[in-house]
């Protein structure tokens, strides 16, 4: 086998490993890099198949320079995970061209491992974890191929699978017991994946992308029953200042706990598992009563976490679902909720509608009626709005979704001298019967209005529900679909499967992502390692090392044992042979007697058994004394068969000194 053949052989496997490793990143790479990878790897594979020339060193250099130039053009100076990934992909694409030695193969495989690891900075989902293990399995198969070029693909895959399977228990031990430290060592910023959701500003048409995003915003598990569907208004943030085009998020002072009404009963308790959204606000059912640990509740009833939510987080909440009307906290700030700018036609319309009514609720009723009677259409693809967005929505396009209705409504209320503000959050959620929790998706995003009524406080008004009851109905139907789904056949089956998977993966994620210093300490305490501080760490390390050594020793023993037959088994079989002779009426073997002597003694009494006795004794001697390092399995098999077949009958005739 020539050198070139040797070197070419593993390349398709290495490219396969690179493709598997790169696959989860495709969404984050610019299209040209994907095309670049496909064409380079494709050419390499075809060049092996059809013996085309490989790019020489000069061409490799040109490709490298071209790739880096294109990277610079794409990412400019924005260094970050994406540009790093791009560089890795561009280089991995041309790396196979230069493979000529075993060393190149090894390095390329390491690059593949590196790409696999890069994907962990994206998500910590169960699916990703499983995919990564699969990817490592393939990469390792390629690595084995590199180191054993003559073995078959099936052998490689089998061995790779065996190694991964044997490593998994060790991985679990290390994962659980490797000492974790509280917090982060250095405050390097985390690599961010693109997230969607609300931002600091809100304008009509701003969140249309969210409304088509099937991603999960958070999950909520209730202590008791899930509340009525029309109560599931998940409050996230409040927008109070309007500059004529867009709304700004309100920054309220912290709510003094004494000012917050805490009803003793009629509260809803639940746990929220929030997906990272890189902002500080947390979501809770309208209206939250207390802030969870590490967060604050402000006068606008907005929960604000101490740090931006960079990773999945779980918190306990208590909410009071009925509008209490006892909210006095922001009474003195109502003037701030009256300022409006621009949109003169909308202002005139509101003033006209509000003329005849006094109370805030009556005025709101007028506005809602206006939406209902003027052929407004709910659509997720509204036309663009002009310079005065509310004017152009109310009088020109009349098509929009919650944001349009809510902003217009709030504007009109303010124009009618009623303090009003916008609340952003989610509406509804899908009930998962397998885990007894609600899945709230980005597409459930919703914006509604709150108006101030003297003596009552802030009252929730949802103009979208008035104009497009089906929008709210859609949210409701999802909640109602709980369990007794109305879907049929395969769709229902797929739907159930999806819900079941969501349950498993969210539980996994809650445990897996949450496993950190505190959880480890709790685990160690449960294992009986009670001393605190460094002593505990040392004991944990000792336990970890001990378990690792035990596992490795057990595996080693198992692997090395499988090659030979245990001497005990040989001995046991020989013992059976002796006792059968004894049953046949021969004297028992003296403990010190050698097998050869015993055979002579036995054949002297039973010449009819001479063939069998001689053969078995011969095999026994070969097994017992032949090879110091364990018996030959083939010989053992023969020995076993012979002994088992050896069933001598008690002798009745021969022998001068018959026993009995």
């Amino acid at each position, binding site marked *: 086998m020539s050198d070139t053949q040797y070197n070419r052989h593993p390349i398709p496997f290495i490219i396969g490993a690179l493709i598997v490793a790169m696959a989860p990143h495709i969404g984050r790479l610019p299209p040209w890099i994907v095309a670049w990878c496909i064409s380079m790897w494709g050419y390499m594979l075809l060049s092996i198949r059809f013996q085309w020339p490989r790019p020489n060193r000069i061409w490799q250099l040109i490709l490298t320079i071209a790739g880096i130039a294109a990277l610079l053009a794409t990412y400019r100076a924005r260094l970050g995970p994406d540009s790093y990934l791009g560089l890795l992909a561009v280089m991995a694409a041309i790396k196979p061209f230069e493979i000529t030695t075993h060393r190149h193969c090894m390095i390329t495989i*390491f690059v593949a491992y590196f790409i696999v690891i890069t994907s962990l900075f994206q998500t*910590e989902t169960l699916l990703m974890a499983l995919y990564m293990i699969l990817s490592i399995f393939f990469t390792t198969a390629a690595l084995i191929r590199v180191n054993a070029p*003559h073995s078959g693909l099936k052998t490689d895959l089998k061995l790779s699978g065996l*190694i991964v399977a044997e*490593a998994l228990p*060790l991985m679990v031990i290390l994962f659980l017991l490797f000492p974790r430290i509280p917090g982060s060592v250095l405050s390097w910023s985390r690599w961010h994946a693109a997230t969607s959701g609300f931002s600091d500003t809100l304008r009509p048409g701003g969140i249309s992308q969210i409304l088509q995003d099937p991603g999960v915003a958070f999950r909520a598990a209730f202590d008791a029953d899930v509340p009525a569907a029309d109560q599931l208004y998940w409050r996230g943030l409040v927008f109070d200042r309007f500059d004529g085009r867009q709304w700004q998020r309100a920054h309220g002072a912290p709510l003094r706990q004494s000012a917050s009404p805490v009803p003793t009963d009629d509260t809803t308790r639940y746990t929220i598992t929030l997906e990272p959204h890189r902002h500080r606000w947390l979501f809770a059912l309208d209206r939250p009563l207390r802030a969870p640990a590490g967060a604050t509740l402000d006068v606008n009833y907005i929960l604000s976490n101490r740090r931006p939510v960079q990773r999945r987080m779980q918190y306990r909440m208590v909410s009071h679902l009925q509008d209490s009307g006892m909210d006095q906290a922001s009474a003195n700030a109502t003037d701030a909720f009256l300022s409006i700018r621009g949109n003169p036609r909308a202002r005139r319309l509101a003033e006209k509608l509000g003329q005849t009514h006094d109370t805030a609720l009556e005025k709101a009723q007028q506005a809602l009626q206006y939406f209902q009677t003027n052929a407004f259409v709910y659509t997720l693809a509204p036309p663009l709005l002009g310079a005065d967005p509310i004017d152009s929505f109310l009088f020109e396009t009349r098509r929009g979704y919650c944001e349009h209705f809510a902003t217009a409504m709030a504007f009109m209320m303010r124009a009618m001298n009623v303090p009003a503000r916008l609340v952003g959050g989610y509406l509804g959620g899908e009930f998962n019967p397998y885990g007894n929790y609600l899945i709230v998706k980005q597409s459930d995003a919703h914006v509604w209005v709150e108006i101030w009524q003297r003596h009552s406080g802030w009252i929730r008004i949802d103009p979208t529900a008035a104009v497009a009851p089906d929008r709210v109905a859609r949210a409701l139907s999802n909640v109602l679909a709980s369990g007794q789904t109305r879907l049929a056949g395969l769709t229902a089956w797929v739907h159930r499967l999806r819900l079941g998977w969501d349950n498993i993966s969210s539980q996994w994620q809650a445990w897996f992502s949450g496993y950190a210093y505190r959880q480890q300490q709790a685990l160690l305490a449960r294992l009986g390692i009670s001393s605190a501080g460094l002593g505990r760490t040392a004991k944990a390390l000792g336990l970890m090392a001990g378990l690792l050594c035990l596992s490795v020793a057990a595996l080693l023993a198992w692997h090395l044992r499988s*090659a*030979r037959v245990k001497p005990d088994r040989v001995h046991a079989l020989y013992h059976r042979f002796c006792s059968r002779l004894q049953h046949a009426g021969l004297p028992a073997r003296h403990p010190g007697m050698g097998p050869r002597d015993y055979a002579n003694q036995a054949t002297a009494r039973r010449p009819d058994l001479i063939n069998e006795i001689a053969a078995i004794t011969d095999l026994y001697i070969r097994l017992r004394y032949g090879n110091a*390092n364990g018996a030959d399995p083939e010989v053992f098999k023969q020995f076993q068969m012979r002994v088992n077949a050896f069933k001598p009958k008690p002798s009745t005739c021969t022998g001068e000194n018959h026993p009995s």
Partner: protein
Amino acid sequence: MNRFFNVPWKRPPRRDHLPMTLGRRRIFILPTPHGWLFLFILLAMLIGSINYNNNLGFMLVFLLGAMALISTIHTHRNLHGLTIARMAARPVFAGKSAVFNLHVDPGRRTRTSICFSLQKDAPLIATITGPDHPELAISLPATRRGRLKPDRLTLASQFPMGLFRAWSHLHPEVDCLVYPAPISGYLQDGTAQSAGQGKRPSRHRGTDDFQGLRVYQPGDSPQHIAWKALSRGQGIFTKQFTAAAGSRTIMFDLAAIDAESLEQKLSILCGHVLQAHQMDLTYGLRLAGQTLRPARGIAQMQTCLKTLALYGLPDH
């Protein structure tokens, strides 16, 4: 080489008797350079995972680390229980390569990509699937006449992941007889003492009296190799000639050889023996202290060559 550095603290290794099975204590294992690089990458990733408190990172680092650890078992297992059943080498002339033939019994499992070597470089990589695997030929340059004892036989394996290298050093009780490098030339006056009819053999290279072919022996002149037969793939044969067949008897005497050193004299004698054998003469050998009585044939040639190979060496 080792016998010149036979210092007290470095005793000559105990020789292993074949067949010899590799046990646990004979196998050593350490990371390869690639293994160190891999471990370094893992360490860097571990630090990253600790910093980001990234559990997926931890999981992956621990999985890869555990796999590297597990791979040591598989690497070890690839050598463990391997039996070197036989090892032998046919005599060669100094300056050529001694070829040691190794018969290896893999036991029950396939031994993948095992690296056999008798010296630092030029290893032989073989995958041994069963006990009937053909013999492995490992060569070692034979620089000087005498008995060539390989310093050690190294068996190594990096299978399956190339991150660790397991190896075992064997010191098999085996040697290769190295004849002196023959210096060929015509038998000259004075070197051959007539013992019989006194008729000096000369010019007996006549190619006209072709007798037949016989199997090639080390030492046969390349000029007499039956190249046609070789090119037909029939094996190596030597053409035999009858020109000098017959009654003449020669004694080769070391003392009569005129050369600078003993080694040169032995080489010249070696050439003479080969030539005499080729001409199918009856010849004997007289060295200081020992005399081989005249005879002819392959056995005589081999005895003579062996005597020349070991002449004056301490361990003979």
